[in-house]
């Protein structure tokens, strides 16, 4: 009977808990890229993300016995990554250089078709994602890169489900505003 990726991840964690280095290597090959992508989105620095990803993997080696089969391995390991990222940000007093103003909500001036066109501009979107707060960026990444449900995201970020929904709402509105503003600036620049 075929096994799911989650089942296989659980089997690997059981092997790691027994000290099997080969299973640790396989776990690394399967999950490191996703852990690194999450950390890079949070820390916005490739060297920091690689360093913390290594710490996460060491924690997996030391703590695999704590994994409970009712959770998905990805959720569990991203939860570890989340804690490590928060520790790193606290230690380095990391704050977003410029966070989007999400108090003003929807950018109602932009029509729906405009917004779809704007979000498809990868450069503009990347700039706007960079300007989101750490917490908002994490929710967007987990929902749209990892395709996780709000319950799993709440477990990873260690917050209530309502908070996840609220952060996503504000992140989305902030992105809309940012896309609208940048498009306006770029249009002006292009007209010169």
């Amino acid at each position, binding site marked *: 009977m075929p096994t799911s990726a989650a089942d*296989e991840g659980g*089997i*690997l964690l*059981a*092997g790691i808990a027994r*000290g*099997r*280095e*080969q*299973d*640790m*290597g*396989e776990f*690394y*090959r399967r999950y*490191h*890229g*996703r852990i*690194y*992508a999450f950390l*890079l*989105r949070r820390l916005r620095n490739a060297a920091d993300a*690689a360093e913390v*990803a*290594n710490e996460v*993997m*060491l924690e997996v*080696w*030391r703590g695999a*016995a704590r994994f409970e089969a009712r959770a998905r391995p990805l959720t569990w390991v991203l939860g570890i990554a989340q804690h490590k990222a928060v520790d790193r940000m606290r230690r380095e007093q990391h704050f977003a250089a410029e966070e989007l103003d999400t108090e003003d909500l929807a950018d109602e001036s932009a029509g*729906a*078709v405009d*917004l*779809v066109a704007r*979000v*498809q501009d*990868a450069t503009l*979107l*990347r700039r706007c*994602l960079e300007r989101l707060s750490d917490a908002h960026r994490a929710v*967007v*990444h987990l*929902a*749209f*890169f990892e*395709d*996780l*449900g*709000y319950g*799993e995201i709440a477990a990873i970020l260690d917050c209530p489900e309502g908070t996840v*929904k*609220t952060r*996503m*709402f504000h992140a*989305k509105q902030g*992105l*809309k505003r940012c896309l609208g503003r940048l498009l306006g600036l770029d249009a002006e620049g292009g007209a010169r």
Partner: protein
Amino acid sequence: MSELAHPDELLPWYVNHTLPAAERQAVEAHLRGCERCSAEIGFLEALRMQVKQATGEHPPDRVGLQRLMREVRAAPTRRERPWLRPALAAAVAAVVVQAALIGWLWTRQPPIEPLGGPWSGGVVLQVRFAPAASEARIRALLQASDATIIDGPGALGVYRLRLRDLRPGDRRAVAKALAELRAARGVVVQAEAE
């Protein structure tokens, strides 16, 4: 359920297909009569696609893995857990029984050639054999490839093979060896370079 007020909070999870069935059905009912939310879905789907593209793939970092394994080997031994004691006693008993059985079998079997060693040099590959592959076919394949099993099976049935005559930098030779292993249908289901 179509009387939901605009379900803005649920739409991102409708788009990534993770909503529980009841909420998904409520959103679908709402979307049938709401142009505003349908347009919002279009925005969120475009956003999801762009986030995936912008994030991209991050293939496993071989240097990072080597560093991790060095640190893993240097990590302190984990503490013994109380429930391990009876399990350990049972395992020791099983080993004693197996040793007696092996000793008895040893007198009935032709001698096994000692394995070569030390395992240094060459190229290491990871291979998963077909569950139905016989020992004879696996042995024949290993001999034809001049390969030696140096580790495994892992929890997922992966073995590590060393091909002593290959140099790690000789990509063409490694690719050829992998192609030969993968071509052994019915014996190998997966073969990758380490």
